[in-house]
């Protein structure tokens, strides 16, 4: 009763202030979401991080063309090794100091300088440039994977949720089976098969991502199915049925738009996890292979080279930072969107 009178009062006040103003328009849900998203500092930080990484990875190599991804610095490097030998001749001690000058073709493990902003790695590739190319791979691959996962998940989940019954049962049992499969061991097998089949190192990561899509879509499908199951019983869906709308209109104009909020959140969160997945694969030498760069591959150097781990932080720490920034950024955006899209938040 109280609320109703309040509502009426509100209505009257709106009407008395602007009696016949047709331009009066309260915010649309989408605009409200955008405003709420930008009000949260953390999500803005996440957005800046992700946009920054995109600019760095995609525009960077266009602007900074000094070095290429697989271009060795062949300026040469002279390595000096000093050896000391002590002799004792007739009670007197002699020290023989011998310096060996070794001329090497590649300028590897160079410290940061104007020539190489972050130095070079153990092969003589420019770390800074490889960081950009590695970012390209990581971002492209994770976007493709998430895109495929979402499409497959929406279609399968939508069918399962809307039609129910036997179709629902079949799809959901398929999901259960896929969720049970252990991801990494199968990945190892596939990777070995790919090695044996001699597929170009450039493309194998995409094939692996298709596999990842195949084992990851059940999560999205379950989310979409659950949402559609609850939305299907809403009265406005019954009203749509009573209006005689076609099935495709009901699914794509009435159900899917209402699943979008959860879907967007799910997508942005799984972008982060896909980047991690890609980095893990490359680190385990299953994903992008040398000489091509990926953040995981760049960190992988330390697994075979103790010297780099201890003395050349410039080679592998930046890649780690990039992974952290990307994952954090996507998670911040996801969290921000989740809060912004929450219909119960009334501000």
């Amino acid at each position, binding site marked *: 009763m109280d609320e*109703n009178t309040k*509502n009426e009062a509100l209505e009257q006040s709106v009407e008395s202030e602007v009696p016949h103003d047709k331009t009066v328009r309260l915010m649309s849900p989408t605009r409200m979401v955008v405003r709420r998203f930008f009000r949260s500092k953390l999500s803005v930080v996440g957005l800046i991080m992700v946009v920054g990484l995109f600019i760095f990875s995609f525009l960077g190599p266009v602007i900074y063309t000094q070095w290429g991804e697989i271009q060795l610095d062949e300026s040469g490097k002279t390595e000096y090794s000093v050896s000391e030998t002590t002799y004792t001749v007739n009670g007197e001690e002699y020290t023989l100091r011998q310096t060996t000058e070794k001329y090497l073709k590649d300028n590897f493990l160079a410290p940061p300088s104007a020539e190489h902003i972050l130095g070079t790695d153990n092969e003589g590739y420019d770390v800074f440039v490889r960081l950009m190319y590695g970012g390209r791979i990581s971002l492209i691959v994770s976007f493709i994977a998430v895109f495929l996962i979402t499409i497959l998940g929406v279609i399968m989940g939508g069918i399962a949720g809307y039609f129910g019954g036997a179709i629902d049962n079949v799809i959901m049992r398929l999901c259960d089976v896929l969720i049970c499969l252990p991801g990494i061991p199968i990945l190892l097998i596939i990777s070995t098969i790919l090695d044996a089949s001699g597929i170009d190192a450039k493309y194998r990561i995409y094939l692996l991502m298709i596999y990842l899509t195949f084992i990851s879509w059940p999560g999205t499908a379950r989310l979409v199915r659950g949402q559609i199951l609850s939305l299907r019983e809403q009265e406005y869906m019954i009203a749509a049925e009573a209006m005689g*709308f076609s099935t495709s209109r009901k699914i794509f104009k009435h159900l899917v738009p209402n699943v979008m909020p959860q879907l967007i959140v799910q997508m942005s969160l799984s972008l982060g996890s896909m980047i991690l997945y890609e980095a893990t694969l490359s680190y385990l030498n299953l994903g992008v292979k040398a000489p091509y760069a990926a953040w995981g591959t760049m960190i992988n150097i330390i697994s075979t080279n103790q010297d780099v781990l201890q003395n050349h932080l410039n080679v592998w720490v930046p890649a780690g930072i990039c992974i952290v920034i990307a994952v954090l950024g996507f998670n911040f955006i996801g969290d921000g969107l989740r809060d912004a899209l929450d219909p119960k938040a009334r501000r």
Partner: protein
Amino acid sequence: MAEEKITEQFDTEAILEVRNLRKCFPLKKTLTGKVTQELVAVDNVSFKLKRGETLGIVGESGCGKTTLGRTILKLHQSNGGQIIFDGQDITDLKSSQMRDIRKKMQIIFQDPYSSLPPRSTVGGILSEPVEVHKIVPKSEIKSYVLDLMEKCGLRDYYYERYPHEFSGGQRQRICIARALSVNPELVICDEPVSALDVSIQAQIINLLKELQQKLNLTYVFISHDLSVVKFISDKIGVMYLGSMVEFGSKEDIFSNPLHPYTQALFSAIPQPDPDIKMNRIILSGDIPSPANPPKGCRFHTRCPKATDKCKEVTPEYKDYGNGHCAACHLLG
């Protein structure tokens, strides 16, 4: 020839005729999908409704009023009986065949909060059915919708607004406008005012009455509020546990209720005068579970006048003159 027969068979004066309608919901199924136990939500309901009339359906909650309304609209598939709409038997039509008939029969829901899609504007909600059913040419949709909004007491600048910005009464007006957007002949009002407070109830009821006169609509008005039903209806059907126990014109039913349940129900209408002593007939016990209805007359467990016959034999639903029907052994 066949078509002529149909017109002979069905009363053309009646816009809606329901014959022995039955709707069950499965409760338990075996693994092979065979139904072992079911809930009979609507059982053996028959009535005829003329064009332009209002049928009020009353009964306590859980007696199958809403299910009856939705089964008539074929939102639930019936399990027996016939629904004849506008001289056409629609009982077994497929959903693709129903699409054209849908625009002639519409529904207004009880809850104006969940029956509007939250992500479209009022304009979008109202113009979508107009567009789908091609009620007016595309270029005239907006003016048609604005005209409709005015009829339903909505201001034209609401067009761009979203449902969550409105109060319950305004939302119910939007629901009414949506139902009327396709020019229906029959509107099923499923407790359209029970979620609203009293002053708004009156506005909405008056709006419905006004629109009925303007557009020559036929209503099936489902409610548990007897005073509302008395105000709006021409005919009244009283339901108890899925079946129609009494049906007749408003005057007959209010002045001369035949069935003991109707008598008890009407004795419960509050009188706005403290000096009038109310002779309330208090029914004992709860409404029995529709999954396991009592044998014989379904009302005998609570009927103050029940006899042994009532416990064994299901009473026949008979006409006691002037279209006033009831199902009770006591009437002879």
